[in-house]
C-alpha cells in the first residue's frame, strides 16, 4: 500500500481500493436515505431546532453521537482491522480553538439561513430541489475563498 503525502485536514492517505468503491457509494445512499427519513434534511426541522421548539433534532443528534461513541469504542477495543487490513485509527483534529470558534460560527450562520448543511445539499439535489445548486455553487466559491485567504486568517 502506498502512502501519499499527508495533507492537513484530509484524513486517510491511502488510495481508494476499486473493490471498496461500491461500499462507499452504498454508504452514501444509506446516509442520504436517513437524512430524508429522519427529516434532518427538512428546512422546517432545522428552524424548529434553532428555536428550541421541539426535541426531534436534539434527540436525533444526541442519539447519533451516543451510538457513534459506543460503537466506535467497541470497534477499536475489539482490535478489529478494516476490511482492507488497516489498523483502525482516528486522526486527531488539530488542537486550538480560534479556527473552530470563528469557522464554526460562520458555518452556523450559513446553516441557520438556508437551513441546510453540506450533507442535505447533496441529498436535496437528488430529491429534485434544484435551487440547492445555488447553495452548492456559492459553497464552492466560499471554499475557494478560504483557500485563497487562509494565510491571512487567524487559526
Amino acid at each position, binding site marked *: 500500500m502506498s502512502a501519499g*503525502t499527508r495533507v492537513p485536514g484530509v484524513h486517510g492517505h491511502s488510495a*481508494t481500493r476499486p473493490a*471498496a468503491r461500491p461500499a*462507499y*457509494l*452504498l*454508504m452514501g*445512499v*444509506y446516509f*442520504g436515505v*436517513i437524512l430524508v427519513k*429522519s*427529516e434532518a*434534511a*427538512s428546512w*422546517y426541522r432545522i*428552524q424548529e*431546532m434553532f428555536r428550541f421548539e421541539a426535541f426531534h*433534532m436534539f434527540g*436525533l*443528534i444526541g*442519539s*447519533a*453521537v451516543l*451510538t*457513534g461513541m459506543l460503537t*466506535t469504542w467497541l*470497534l477499536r477495543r475489539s482490535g*478489529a482491522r*478494516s476490511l482492507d487490513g488497516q489498523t*483502525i485509527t482516528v486522526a486527531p*483534529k488539530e*488542537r486550538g*480553538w480560534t479556527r*473552530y470558534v*470563528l*469557522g*464554526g460560527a*460562520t*458555518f452556523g*450562520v*450559513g*446553516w*441557520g*439561513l*438556508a437551513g441546510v448543511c453540506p*450533507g442535505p445539499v*447533496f*441529498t436535496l*439535489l437528488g*430529491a429534485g430541489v*434544484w*435551487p440547492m445548486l445555488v*447553495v452548492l455553487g*456559492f459553497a*464552492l466559491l*466560499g*471554499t475557494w475563498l*478560504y483557500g*485563497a485567504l487562509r494565510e491571512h486568517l487567524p487559526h
Partner: protein
Amino acid sequence: MTELLDLLRSPWPWWVGGPLIGLTVPLLLLIGNRAFGISSNLRHACAILLPDAVKPGFFRYNWRAQSWNLLFAAGLILGGTLAGLLLADPEPTRLSAAGAASVQELGVQVRPGLVPAELTDLSNPGVWLLLGVSGLLVGFGTRYGGGCTSGHAITGLSTLQLPSLIATVSFFAGGILSANLLLPAFMAVIR
C-alpha cells in the same frame, strides 16, 4: 401493498434515525479506515475544478486518494432521489405547534416537501441572495472550522475530540443567531 408503500413513505422518529446516523462512523472505519465528513468534498471539488492559474496551495494535493468521499457524496444524491423523490413523504414535516407558528410567522406555509416553495422560488432575487449568502458562509466556514455537522458533531464528538466540541458549540451559536435574527430580516425582504 398500499400499507407497505405508506410505511416506506413515512418519516422515522428520532430514535430510529439517530442511531443509524451514528453507525456511519464505525462502518466507514470498518470498510477502509475512513473518517466520516461530508464538507471535505467541497474542497475536493475545488481541487478538481480550479484551473492551475487560480489554484491556491490549499487545493494542490492528491484528491484521487479521497475519491471514496466523492463516491459517498454521489450516494447522498442517489439516496435523496430514492427517499425524497420516489418515496417522498406526502405529508408536511410534522412540526411542533410552536415550530409551525414560527415558520408561519416567517411567511412560510407548512406544505409537503423538505424545503418550502418560498425559499426555492428563483424568480425572486431575494431567494438568490438568501441561498447565495448561506452557501458562501457554509463553504467558507466549514473549511475554516475544518468540518461540518458530520465531521465535527458526529465523528468528532463520537471520538471525544475537544476541537469538535468547540466547533459544534460554535455551529449552534451561529445557527441560533441567524435563524432567530438574520432569517426574519431576510424573509421580510423576500416576502
